[in-house]
């Protein structure tokens, strides 16, 4: 009995990583599939519509353009911390966090408390009246930012935040041209669709005075990690494509939708300089990288040693609440007083209370350090996996914002699109919900709720190992 008990216990525990990659080879190649780490939560019994019924209604009432993951899409009915549950009560490891959005964890009790308490008092009255929640939250948020970044505008999404940031840049500088990076994603509204630079997301409508510069992509870029060479392209665009003066530059520090691409080290410092000399302001899109996710720093831009003029945020800011924000300096904010700019829902008491709770949780639970910790463990295990499987072309990112790029040929870097899709499905079958991105859809995006544990990380890598071994 004890013998079987030990075997069972071993089987339930993910294999401990060793420095010897060869030792890993034996772990999940031929044995039984890895098991989810234990979790003490029983989902409520689900009595609602089935996956098929929901899918049918979606097709009928939500349009043909609404896409979804997986051949057989999952009916996700419940969430708890870093796990999701489907209609049958089956548990999954959420390695994508509703697209880098659920920062504290699904239904995090402290965040829920704040939201529910406020919902019972006052949900909405708008900022034409006073309410403490918005001021308190703005104060707490700005205390996390360096320099003179202390004026906050609350909006309802990343798109709205980037729209406002662009407006500010143009108003403040009096210039028109905006610069963004190829492979970036900044939103889907009229202005932001222009900043977004991936054709999948760009509809055929006029998109204004935007210049898309070479992506300082260490893996696929023509200059490798040579930041200077990429920065020269920005100067080039300014010199030859604009009047010589620009409104601003916007970039994610680690491109999200674009496939967890880290900007070549030193790039932002050089470019910020160039842009400011051309009269422009520098906007850091922290919609995905913000709030401690990158581990080493609270904000992604800090990893590049710069201080932007405007910072935009959304997604993780509210753990899933429809909330976004733009933070800038009083000087830049002052130009907004020329006209009236108003956001009806923005800064409502419930979202402000929720956002504030998120900040407290991240601090109290030391999520930033945790991301650094788990992130580096995850990266090292993924890099070991990279030594084992040729299909892993690149492993990159920081903290809990990671990417694994799959290629069929390491030299040519041919995107392994079909294989990625296949593994994507297999991972789901094993109980791992991962993200997908990149121009060719061949990058796994690993951006879980920031309460992701070491055991979760091991399980994820083991699941990857197992599925890849079966390819």
């Amino acid at each position, binding site marked *: 009995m004890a013998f079987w008990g030990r075997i069972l216990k071993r089987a339930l525990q993910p294999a401990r990583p060793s420095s010897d990659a060869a030792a890993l080879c034996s772990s999940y190649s031929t044995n039984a599939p890895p098991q989810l780490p234990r979790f003490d939560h029983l989902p409520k019994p689900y009595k609602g519509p089935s996956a098929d019924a929901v*899918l049918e209604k979606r097709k009928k009432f939500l349009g043909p353009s609404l896409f979804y993951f997986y051949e057989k899409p999952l009916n996700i009915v419940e969430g708890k911390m870093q796990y999701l549950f489907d209609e049958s009560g089956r548990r999954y490891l959420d390695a994508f966090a509703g697209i880098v959005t659920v920062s504290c964890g699904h239904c995090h009790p402290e965040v829920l408390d704040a939201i*529910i308490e406020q919902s019972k008092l*006052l949900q909405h009255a708008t900022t034409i009246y006073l309410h403490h929640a918005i001021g308190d939250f703005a104060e707490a948020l700005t205390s996390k930012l360096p320099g003179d970044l202390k004026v906050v505008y609350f909006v309802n999404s990343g798109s*709205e935040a980037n729209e406002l940031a662009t407006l500010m840049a143009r108003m403040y500088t009096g210039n028109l041209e905006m610069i963004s990076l190829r492979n970036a994603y900044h939103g889907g*509204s009229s202005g932001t669709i222009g900043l977004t630079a991936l054709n999948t997301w760009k509809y055929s409508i006029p998109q204004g005075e935007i210049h898309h510069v070479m992506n300082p992509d260490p893996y696929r870029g023509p200059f490798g990690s040579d930041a200077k060479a990429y920065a020269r392209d920005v100067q080039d665009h300014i010199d030859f494509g604009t009047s010589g003066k620009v409104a601003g530059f916007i970039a994610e520090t680690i491109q999200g939708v674009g496939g967890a691409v880290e900007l070549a080290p030193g790039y932002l410092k050089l470019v910020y300089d160039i842009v400011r000399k051309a009269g422009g302001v520098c906007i850091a899109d922290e919609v995905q990288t913000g709030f401690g996710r990158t581990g080493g720093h609270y904000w992604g831009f800090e990893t590049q040693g710069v201080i932007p003029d405007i910072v935009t945020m959304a997604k993780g800011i509210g753990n899933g609440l429809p909330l976004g924000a733009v933070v800038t300096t009083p000087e830049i904010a002052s130009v907004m007083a020329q006209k009236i700019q108003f956001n009806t829902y923005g800064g409502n008491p419930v979202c402000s209370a929720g956002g504030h709770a998120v900040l407290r949780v991240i601090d109290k639970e030391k999520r930033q350090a945790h991301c650094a910790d788990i992130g580096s463990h995850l990266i090292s295990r993924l890099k070991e996996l990279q030594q084992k499987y040729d299909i892993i072309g690149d492993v990159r990112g920081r903290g809990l914002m990671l990417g694994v790029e799959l290629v069929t040929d390491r030299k040519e870097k041919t995107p392994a699109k079909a294989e990625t899709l296949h593994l994507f499905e297999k991972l789901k079958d094993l109980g791992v919900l991962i993200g997908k991105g990149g121009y060719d859809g061949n990058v796994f995006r690993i951006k879980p709720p920031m309460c992701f544990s070491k055991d979760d990380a091991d399980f994820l890598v083991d699941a990857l190992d197992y599925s890849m071994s079966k390819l």
Partner: protein
Amino acid sequence: MMNDGGNRIENRVDGLFNKFCINIVDGKKQYLFDEEGRRYLDAFGGIATVCCGHCHPDVVSAVVKQMNRIQHSTVLYLNHAIADFAEALASKMPGDLKVVFFTNSGTEANELALMMARLYTGCQDIISIRNGYHGNAAGTMGATAQSIWKFNVVQSGVHHTLNPDPYRGVFGSDGEKYAKDVQDLINFGTSGHVAGFISEAIQGVGGIIELAPGYLPAAYSTIKKAGGLCIADEVQSGFARTGSFWGFESHGVVPDIVTMAKGIGNGIPLGAVVTTPEIAEVLTRRSYFNTFGGNPVCTAAGLAVLNVIEKEKLQENAHVVGSYLKERLLSLKDKYELVGDVRGRGLMLGLELVTDRKLKTPAKTEIVHVMEQMKDMGVLVGKGGYYGNVFRITPPLCFTKEDADFLVDAMGYTLSKM
């Protein structure tokens, strides 16, 4: 502060924000409470947003229940809440309007609507009505047509047509005459073909201006002949506020695209675009995605709102109490020279103050004074219009006759002391 009538801008900003500093900490039904526990009648509804009433138990419980289960996972996975709400919403729509897109605000909804119209028609030109408000992002700022809301940035592709304003417009209430301006703009300002036309059924920010009778059918017809789509911005007039479920219904038209926000979720950040399957198809050309849009909590709230509106017969209440309120406001007009015009439908009413009835000179300082006085008496109203001289009365739809009486009495009392 900028020029462009700097004083006017300062007044407007002051009037909106500085002089009206009350700390609102609690809300229940059609009442708000300040930090001292003082109760106010909320005749503005958080800008026509709180339709069921502050902290309506059905809506709150739907939100809480869903929050405790799952808040957010995106539409990449299935969840019944979004599907159920989309179905219920579509059932409120006439014709072939049955495909729903969820966003987080009115601005996002209008942005998407404008993009769809441009993609569907292959044309760029949009026509919107002067004095209209549609949002503040790049595209919607162009459609918005009041200088105070338009920053000095490029806003191409939009033409602003004459406002069919029965009170201040050049053609009085002759809707068809105004509609001719639409044809004029198309003939002389565009290639002859347009992407579409967007309008509110009753202008909200613009000061509760009802489009002159006969206007919308004529304008729609003109736009359709030019190959364009008709977009109805129901952000303020939707969800039973005007006594009809949708504002456009009272104009006897069926739009091609309908946008909504504000009342849709009783205050939760939610917006939507409803259109036909044919038009919706354009988005399949590329990918459009809204991370927060359609999340289980907001859609659960939206469904609860629809149920409350039906269960508590809020549409009927808006019509009955609204008509009563309008009549009482009209009696104020009979009594006080300062009241230039009373207009609107259901619980979307406006009262314009003028210092001279013939010249219709906006009573800008007087309105601020009355607004302050009313606040002191316990009534919170809204303000709008190009000159900031229109009271906007858009309370939660559970507003009662007694509330209406109190509002009018408070206003009457203030006016009598001037």
